[in-house]
């Protein structure tokens, strides 16, 4: 892997964010809306339940973590879409870059996006609702690791879908997190789901994070085994997603799609 080429892909995204206020601001709109809306809802539920259950740490914390995953996924897909929108494929793929370097560059860009978003969410949640991530203790780093790896896997799958089906398939990508959220139990334990949904939920690494959040906040033991399982699953999905991307890329090279990438040329 050539670090300079990885940096080039990252640098392109940095230039885009730095040079355009629209790109910068859009990173914060949805996460701000989420934190504000779920923060007030959590405060309201805490007020009326009288159970002493810490809604802020469970609900708002879970939303914050889920949004972190979405930012990582979007960090990868948005980087790819920038090349789609600017018809830059030929310039990129006719250069010495390897697919692994291209994906690594996107992943670096997604880390930047994820860190900025996480910082903004933590400041907002803390300032407005008294949320503190310290309640999760050392587990927070494992929560973030599982979600980061899951976001990377989802991002690579999304890139593969758009590369295979064309730019019009962009609209399939945005709802992916929303489609997955009922299965991973962001706001409720998997046990409330029907058996078939629970089965799917257990295959999705973020499920172990949200179960862990609830366990820790309710005073349970550190969910080390579950989180380890989440990491292993997420790594497996990254490998599978990369294999999917390589298969789609090779097909695109055989068909000539890369050289003439547009909605009209996809078949």
């Amino acid at each position, binding site marked *: 892997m*050539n670090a*300079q*080429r990885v*940096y*080039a892909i990252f*640098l*392109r995204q940095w*230039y*885009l964010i730095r*040079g*355009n206020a629209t790109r910068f601001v859009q990173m914060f709109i949805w996460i701000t809306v989420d934190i504000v809306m779920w923060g007030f809802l959590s405060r309201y539920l805490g007020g009326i339940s009288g159970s002493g259950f810490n809604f802020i740490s469970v609900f708002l914390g879970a939303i914050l973590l889920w949004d972190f995953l979405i930012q990582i996924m979007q960090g990868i897909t948005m980087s790819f879409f*920038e090349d789609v929108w*600017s*018809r*830059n*494929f*030929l*310039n*990129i*793929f*006719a*250069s*010495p*870059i*390897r697919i692994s370097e291209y994906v690594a560059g996107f992943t670096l860009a997604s880390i930047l996006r994820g860190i900025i978003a996480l910082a903004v969410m933590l400041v907002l949640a803390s300032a407005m609702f008294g949320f503190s991530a310290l309640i999760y203790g050392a587990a927070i780093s494992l929560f973030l690791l599982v979600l980061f790896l899951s976001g990377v896997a989802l991002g690579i799958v999304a890139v593969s879908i758009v590369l295979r089906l064309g730019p019009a398939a962009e609209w399939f990508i945005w709802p992916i997190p929303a489609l997955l959220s009922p299965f991973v139990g962001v706001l409720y334990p998997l046990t409330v789901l029907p058996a078939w949904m629970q089965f799917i939920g257990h295959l999705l690494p973020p499920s172990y994070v949200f179960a862990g959040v609830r366990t820790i906040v309710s005073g349970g033991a550190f969910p080390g085994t579950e989180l380890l399982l989440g990491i292993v699953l997420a790594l497996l999905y990254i490998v599978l997603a990369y294999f999917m991307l390589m298969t789609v890329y*090779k097909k695109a*090279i*055989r*068909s*000539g799609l*890369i*050289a003439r990438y547009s909605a009209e040329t996809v078949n």
Partner: protein
Amino acid sequence: MSVLEVKDLTKTYGTNPAVKGISFSVARNEIVGLLGPNGAGKTTTIDMILGVLEPTSGTITIEGNDVARKKSEALAVTNFAAVYAQLPGNHTVHENLNIFGLLYGVPNRERRIDEVIREFDLEPFRNTRCGVLSSGEQTRVSLAKATINSPHLLLLDEPTASLDPSTAQTIRQKIKGYAAKGIGGVLWTSHNMQEVADVCNRILFLSHGRILLEGDPRTLPHEHGKKDLEELFISIAREPLLHESL
């Protein structure tokens, strides 16, 4: 010594052959014109050389690196400019050159960026977004990107198509100088026959995926009883079978 070796190159889409077993080479100090009517297989050939299209059969070697097996190594010493591959409009000239300088592993990158910016008269646009440049200025940026790594093989697909006659002549002189210095060989496609006669040391006439004629652009028309290259081009485009037997 050849920088590019193409052997028995074929590309078939389903049952439709686009390129039919062509072979040619480009030497380091040579400018080779790849000519032919629309749909002759020129861009398909260039795409295969650039590794963005997989040949059905045949081999492409750039500086000894097989594009199928050592693509990254082969493309590190190659570069291209094409009217259909403008650089992203949302970056400045300097940003684009910096990104591609990194992608091509250019040593002393900032110095080299300054050189190509000067060489293609882009100083006033250094910090201007490429999207707001005129098409001629954008072409010059593409050419600056195409030469940033001093490629041993330079592929130019109609490089002067959107340039005014004066700028086009300047660009032709620069590319001729590039090849003459022995920095690299150039594969040049154009529909401007005067330009081809002026720039190219050798031409390949492609029609229906085959190389029908090959030779010196200054002598080839007379060898085939034609007044000039344009007349020869029209003749081949309209009656390729006549020339296939030659």
